[in-house]
């Protein structure tokens, strides 16, 4: 369940359009649960998007990125069949991974 990433990578002309959706609560640490106890901060701190094996985009995130984060980007040089993968690490050291091929 945790750590899943849904990626869509589509070739449009000579540009590859990537849309990634990540499964993560992105808790800010400011919220309280039903019993009034604070919910500890738990958010993705770092994310990378890789084409075959070169990093095309890297992100550092704070807790203000929305829950179940969405990331959209475009890069040159991709070809149908290439691999696009996304990986993240959160403030607890947990990781998430996803991989797909360009269509």
């Amino acid at each position: 369940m945790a750590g899943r990433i849904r990626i869509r990578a589509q070739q449009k002309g000579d540009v590859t359009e990537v849309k990634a959706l990540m499964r993560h609560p992105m808790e800010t640490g400011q919220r309280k649960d039903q019993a009034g106890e604070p919910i500890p901060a738990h958010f993705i701190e770092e994310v990378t998007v890789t084409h075959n094996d070169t990093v095309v985009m890297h992100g550092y995130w704070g807790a203000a990125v929305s829950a179940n984060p969405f990331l959209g980007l475009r890069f040159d040089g991709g070809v149908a069949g290439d691999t696009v993968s996304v990986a993240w690490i959160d403030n607890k050291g947990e990781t998430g991974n996803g991989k797909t091929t360009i269509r």
Partner: protein
Amino acid sequence: MKPMMSGLTAMLAATLTMVVGAEQGVFDEYRAMMGDDNPAIFVIDEGEEYWFEPAGPNQVTFEQCDLGLGAGVVEGAYAQLPRYFSDADQVMDLEARLVFCMVELQGRTREQIHAKPYSLRGDLGTEMEALVVWIAEQSSGTAVAPAQDHPKERAMYSLGERLFYYRAGPHDFSCATCHGQADKRIRLQALANLSTHEGAAEAYTTWPAYRNSEGLVRTMGWRMRDCFRQQRLPELIMGSEASVALQMFLAVNAAGADMAVPGLKR
């Protein structure tokens, strides 16, 4: 003696209608930018895994659970609910039926199931939410067709209608208070007129849905419970008669419209 409607109030009423007209679709731009990337897909996949996962003292999956189209048949089942089930001699919605299978097939207790069916703040999702949204998604694109041939099914519709107009609680609210008129809204929240086919279709076909405000998938059963909470009434029991009756009222009003699950809501 109706108080004298001063010219001013008449003028104010006129400005309101102009304002409302302009405000329609106030969130269209927001929705367009959201696109169709709906995080409900994760919960849907989790629902599929729960369906095939042995659970309860009997360590049995849901593959023998009959949702109305035969044991284990999921595709199109949600669109034909609520319906009468002879093995339980009751009209059931999906949540009531899943509880039935959890108890009868898996050997779980009602207390365990009803202890925490829906996510609380800080949760990422529950088994019930995942199962319901996966099953409902298997009816996406299918026309809503609740059963109305059994007398108990018809009785459930008429009870649902009476509940829809039942005013109670400190604020005298009924469902109709907010959902009984066309083109109305609470703050900026558009309100579907659920007593009409168009309004009921717009609402009924888009639940279960992912709610941006909570980051959670919510079911129609939860939606009923949370509406009653805001009516200042006690807590609705999942899959209870009132829940089933109101959903039958909505489903019959919405009949013919295609399910479009998962929805994306505030």
